[in-house]
């Protein structure tokens, strides 16, 4: 449907009004002209008739019929609009006429005087060319008879047409002028309205610098001025808001930069903080082997314990700083959940043993073997929860279990539960335990130590993995921490036979892995580093360990040795000439896949410390990462862990 603009509407309305008025005026004028001309013609006819009546008296009195006829003929000839003339005696005898040989008898019926005296209208006869008015005039007051003339109305029409033709030209001119005025009027009215509408549209589109130019003082002018004022206010407000937003952005950027700086500072400080701590802990460990008095030994324990606590706190702080700085990146990989959990239990079994606690693991029979998830982060959470459970349990047990829900679209919901028979948490304090630097009771910190960051970090990590860490607890009875993760099923999955119960309390650590070709039963460890001094150092440090150490100076050499031997562990430097550690590890993983060899643990030795470096290591196929410089104990723990795992395999 076509939408008419206001301007068109005004123009159409004005033109229609002008045309209507013009038409009415034209009709009224036409009627008035007709009436006036009709009156004129009748008056003229009456004058001719009277004049003829007077002229005919002599001819009638002298009975000069020829003269009378000549008179009638001359009148008819001289007056164009006369159609007929006839003269009748007072006895209604036709004395003369111009109607040819046959005189119409009905004309004698015409009255000798004007019928409508008020209007002075005569009788009209109809003819082919229109009305013919019969205008009579008495001769000698009727004593000698009467004269009748027939005058045609066509004269009226002709005169009327002449006048109207003349009038139409002027009327059309006036109408044309009126239409032009209507156009101008419409434009004058609608132009500021259109400008106003355009301004509103532009402001609506966000062009707040649009001002409507107007000089008029009428209502539209006032409206435009009000609109301009409103736009000005709006622009000022938007400017203010923009300024505030920019300030907020600057503040945000500053805060983010500060947070980034803080995070980088903490990450950079990790080395500076860890090195002296390592020295303190190492010194204490060294002194433990000396002969000390009871007080000295107690003091040394205190230093050792405090150093370890400080190291945990430092690591936790760095972790939390990374999470809060948004640097936490999940690295999903295919992993064996059951193997990971067994490894954790093994790691923590000695701590549990030292407190005479039973640490048990129950793995659901329908737990798939291989899943996709961030193994390192999940491991971190579970180590923290189980470590806490051991710490806060004086006697009884710590039970770790998994349950598996329905698998839909290859997504496996797994619930991890860590249940202990420890001190428990008061109902009112349960929410507080997840807060940063908060433990349920400050006395707990004094008694049990810890940074109070472990559960905060665990909760954040679980949330990052789309889970929610929850707790149920009764004081004096124990606590259960649990969370559910939805992990994607990977191929080559298999089910476990029944519920597996792994008792750790009587576990014996054994490093007995047999190997052929060396003529002994010691496991092989491959050390890959281009720096001879590093190899010498590690060689000395591992000298007393029940292993055979092979050494390679670059990735290429390591690859050759890897093809010929089976290692329980490979310690791989990253930056090396000829072939770096990343390439060598990738090629080793390819070889394992091609030949179906059991996956050999490869641990990166690097002086890089960042998360990105760790992720790059893991992506390259490394299982773990030791940051240089490292403590001897770190090397020992790493060796022990992978030897244990190989034993399980």
């Amino acid at each position, binding site marked *: 449907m076509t939408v008419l603009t206001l301007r068109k509407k005004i123009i159409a309305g004005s033109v229609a009004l002008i045309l209507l008025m013009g038409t009415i005026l034209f009709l009224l004028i036409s009627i008035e002209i007709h009436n006036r001309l009709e009156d004129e013609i009748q008056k003229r006819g009456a004058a001719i008739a009277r004049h003829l009546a007077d002229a005919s008296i002599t001819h009638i009195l002298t009975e000069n019929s020829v003269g009378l006829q000549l008179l009638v003929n001359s009148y008819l000839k001289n007056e164009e609009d006369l159609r007929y003339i006839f003269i009748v005696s007072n006895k209604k005898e036709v004395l003369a006429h111009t109607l040819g040989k046959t005189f119409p008898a009905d004309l004698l019926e015409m009255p000798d005087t004007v019928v409508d005296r008020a209007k002075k209208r005569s009788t009209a006869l109809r003819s082919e060319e229109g009305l013919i008015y019969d205008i009579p005039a008495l001769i000698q007051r009727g004593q000698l008879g009467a004269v009748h003339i027939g005058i045609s109305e066509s004269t009226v029409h002709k005169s009327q047409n002449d006048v109207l033709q003349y009038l139409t030209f002027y009327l059309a001119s006036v109408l044309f002028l009126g239409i032009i005025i209507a156009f101008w009027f419409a434009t004058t009215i609608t132009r500021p309205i259109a400008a106003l509408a355009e301004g509103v549209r532009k402001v609506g589109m966000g062009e707040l610098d649009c001002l409507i130019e107007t000089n008029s003082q009428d209502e539209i002018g006032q409206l435009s001025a009000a609109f301009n004022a409103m736009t000005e206010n709006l622009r000022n407000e938007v400017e203010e808001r923009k300024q505030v937003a920019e300030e907020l952005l600057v503040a945000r950027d500053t805060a983010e930069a500060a947070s980034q700086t803080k995070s980088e500072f903490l990450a950079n400080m990790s*080395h*500076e903080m860890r*090195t*002296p701590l*390592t*020295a303190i802990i190492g*010194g204490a460990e*060294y002194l433990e082997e000396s002969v000390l008095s009871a007080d000295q030994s107690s003091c040394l324990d205190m230093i050792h314990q405090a150093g370890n606590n400080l190291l945990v706190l430092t690591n936790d702080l760095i972790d939390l700083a990374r999470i809060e700085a948004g640097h936490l990146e999940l690295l999903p990989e295919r992993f064996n959940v059951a193997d990971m959990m067994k490894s954790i239990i093994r790691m923590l079994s000695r701590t549990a043993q030292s407190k005479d606690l039973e640490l048990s693991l129950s793995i659901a029979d329908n737990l798939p073997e291989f899943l996709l998830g961030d193994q390192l982060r999940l491991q971190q959470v579970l180590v923290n929860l189980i470590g806490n459970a051991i710490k806060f349990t004086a006697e009884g047990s710590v039970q770790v279990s998994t349950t598996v829900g329905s698998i839909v679209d290859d997504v496996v919901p797994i619930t991890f539960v860590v249940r202990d028979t420890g001190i428990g948490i008061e109902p009112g304090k349960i929410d507080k335990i997840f807060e940063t630097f908060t433990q349920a009771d400050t006395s707990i910190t004094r008694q049990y130590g810890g940074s109070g960051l472990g559960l905060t970090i665990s909760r954040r990590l679980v949330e990052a993995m789309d889970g929610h860490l929850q707790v149920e607890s009764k004081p004096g009875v124990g606590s259960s921490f649990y969370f559910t993760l939805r992990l994607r099923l990977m191929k080559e999955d298999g089910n476990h036979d029944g519920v597996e119960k792994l008792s750790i309390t009587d576990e014996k650590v054994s490093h007995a892995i047999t190997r052929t070709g060396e003529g002994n039963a010691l496991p092989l460890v491959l050390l890959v580093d281009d*720096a001879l*001094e*590093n190899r*010498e*150092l590690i060689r*000395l*440090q591992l*000298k007393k360990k029940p292993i055979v150490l092979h050494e390679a100076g670059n990735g290429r050499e390591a690859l050759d040795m890897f093809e010929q031997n089976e290692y329980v562990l490979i310690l791989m430097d990253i*930056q090396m000439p000829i072939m770096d550690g990343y390439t060598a590890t990738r090629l080793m993983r390819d070889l394992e896949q091609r030949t179906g060899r059991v996956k050999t643990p490869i641990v990166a*030795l*690097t*002086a890089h410390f960042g998360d990105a470096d760790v992720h790059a290591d893991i992506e390259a196929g490394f299982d773990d990462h030791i940051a*240089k*410089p*490292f403590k*001897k104990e770190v090397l020992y723990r790493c060796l022990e862990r992978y030897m244990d795992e190989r034993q399980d395999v």
Partner: protein
Amino acid sequence: MSDTSDCIEIVVEIDSELLPIIPSFLESRWSDCALIERLLETGNHDEISRLGHRLKGAGGSYGFDAITDIGIALERAAIRQDHEAVVQASVMLQNYLKRVKVVYV
């Protein structure tokens, strides 16, 4: 460096089981100082950075935490191609090597 500062010893206690490799380790660091000077002449910052990285990893592992710190400074300076900072780190290393006294425990 003044003579006085050169006289101050830095005592570092090292595990006696590392005795066979410590002298050569420290000797290698003197070689590193000479190497840094040569690399600076050719503007080979990449190699200096790699050297710093090695010092960072090895120093603390041997028990010389200060060498790790100097290695970090050297690596960063080389990455920034900061000639002065590289020279400064090299001087720090030389001073440390002059003053360090190893006590085997």
